[in-house]
């Protein structure tokens, strides 16, 4: 095979993969501007679904719920998970392995198991389903992800850094804040982002613990699809997609700029 053919096949391959991933989204975005409730036919361009969306209270409430749950649960999970990781790292080997197995368990087990068991737990203790139960559930399934992303950073850290800080006059708390925290920050941030996206995305667990009043967006959309997907959902999904895309582009550009700076610094050094 010549080089040219080779690059043609690989381009074709990339094109097909991209098409599989993004065609559905493209179709969805197009239909969000379709002036008809039916999914089958194109009846002209309109933005009325976007206008309707801003008036649809149940969707807006669900969006608001989702954001509140995502923010609170990911922040709390990050705090708990980081503290847990620090504790686990300080343990002796046998205990550490034991705890890590318990940490992996919720990650490995199907979400539906988590959902059902959390629901039973709340019912058993007579807790009414509300935003509170959703947040507690999300914290629960997010903590392991934070632990798993912070622990490697702790392991990479020079174990004498903490002692060096104390040697230079830091109390243990100061040593943690001034030396350990900056070292493991990348792990904490990626743990937070994972927790945040998982929380935004979660359907399985939220479905069991949200009840009538505290529906998150995925739960609401699912309940709507049982009748018919409203074009407003298309509009909302399109907006979410564009927002996520923008965030991704900004962070990537940032990374590229940082890398360039580092290279410059490296040359100077």
């Amino acid at each position, binding site marked *: 095979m010549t080089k040219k053919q080779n690059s043609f096949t690989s381009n074709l391959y990339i094109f097909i993969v991209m098409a599989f991933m993004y065609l559905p989204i493209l179709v969805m975005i197009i239909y969000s501007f379709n002036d008809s409730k039916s999914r089958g036919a194109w009846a002209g361009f309109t933005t009325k679904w976007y206008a309707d969306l801003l008036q649809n209270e149940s969707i807006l409430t669900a969006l608001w719920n989702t954001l509140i749950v995502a923010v609170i649960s990911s922040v709390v999970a990050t705090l708990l998970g980081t503290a847990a990781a620090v504790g686990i790292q300080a343990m002796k080997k046998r205990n550490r392995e034991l705890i890590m197995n318990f940490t992996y368990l919720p990650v490995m087990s199907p979400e539906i198991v988590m959902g059902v068991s959390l629901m039973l737990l709340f019912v058993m203790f007579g807790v009414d389903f509300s935003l509170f139960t959703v947040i507690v559930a999300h914290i629960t399934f997010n903590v392991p992800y934070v632990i798993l992303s912070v622990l490697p950073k702790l392991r990479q850290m*020079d174990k*004498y*850094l903490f*002692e*060096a*800080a*104390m*040697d*230079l*006059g*830091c*109390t243990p708390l*100061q040593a943690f804040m*001034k*030396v350990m925290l*900056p*070292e493991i920050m990348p792990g904490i941030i990626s743990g937070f982002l994972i927790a945040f996206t998982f929380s935004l995305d979660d359907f399985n667990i939220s479905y069991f613990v949200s009840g009538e009043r505290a529906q998150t967006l995925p739960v609401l959309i699912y309940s709507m699809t049982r009748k018919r997907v409203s074009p407003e959902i298309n509009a909302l999904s399109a907006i979410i997609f564009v927002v996520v895309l923008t965030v991704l582009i900004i962070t990537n550009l940032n990374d590229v700029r940082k890398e360039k700076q580092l290279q410059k*610094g*490296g040359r100077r*050094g």
Partner: protein
Amino acid sequence: MNNTNTLISLRGVTVEYDGVVVLDHLDLDIKDKEFVTLLGPSGCGKTTTLRIIGGFTEPSQGDVFFDGVKINDVPPYKRNVNTVFQRYALFPHLNVYENIEFGLKITKLPEEERKKRIKEMLAMVGLSGFELRRVNQLSGGQQQRVAIARALVNHPRLLLLDEPLGALDLKLRKEMQIELKRIQQQLGITFLYVTHDQEEALTMSDRIVIMKNGEIQQMGTPTDIYNEPINAFVADFIGESNIVDGVMIEDYLVEFGGRRLPCLDGGFGKNVKVDVVIRPEDWEICKPENGQFRGIVKSSVFKGVHYELMVQAPGEEEEWMVHTIENHPVGSEIGLILTPDDIHIMNKMSPEEEAELVSALEADSILEDGEESDEE
């Protein structure tokens, strides 16, 4: 502790981890402005001793005094002691200036004073102009200097150094040895230095403490320790030695290698088995017929400054290591002479002690160029 000159005193300090005794009733005094080196093979407890004084390890028994005040329960951040860690432990998220400033900021020293001190310190370690470098852009030797500056800028009474030169290459290590000694004399700060490199210890120290299995074997000036090792372990650890079995016939007369020779030692009793230690550089080489010993050169290795010969007489068991600046070809016959002060007599080690010595020395030579295993 009545001696105002004593800065640090350990009294009966014992450390045990899970039933393993790491330090065994250690007594140690370090005087103000002294450069003391703890020397010994890995696992001898030298690093643990350092950590006790730094406050990172708690003694299971015994007391630690600083300037006559008991500091057993004083946490590291309240001790007037700073440490240069084995792998430097510089803060990677801070640049050179910020690393050195770290301790001063914690103690809330005014900015003007901080600037002044850091400038002085950078000049002293030869890193002026490196303020804004990231620490992981520095070479090993430069990181080493930052670590020293970061510790010394706080003006501690005592600086602890845990094998700080272990990761550097030989040439840099020699330079830094001289540098460290200069800094110590210039600032008049007490240095407690840990190493398993006997040459390093001999070069820099005012006093050397030789340790084995959590116990002190011998304390003294480098010259004392080299010339008058107290036992075969010290003799073998410090420099190379011929160690052979001998019998003390009476005071000032010893028999070894089939000869009776005069020596300077007494008080062992009559007909007592002893170890005889002879430094390879103490032999005098002469014509075969004039020697107290004579033998054939079995091997000759050029060591840079001197040749190392192995000499053995036909039919005799002992093989002597001889250092000489003049080469003698393999196969030639030479004579060897010892004066009485070249012969060092030591109490005989028990077979267990001998086995320990062998394993300790073997373990050490394996680890020599690698890192020392954790002593905890």
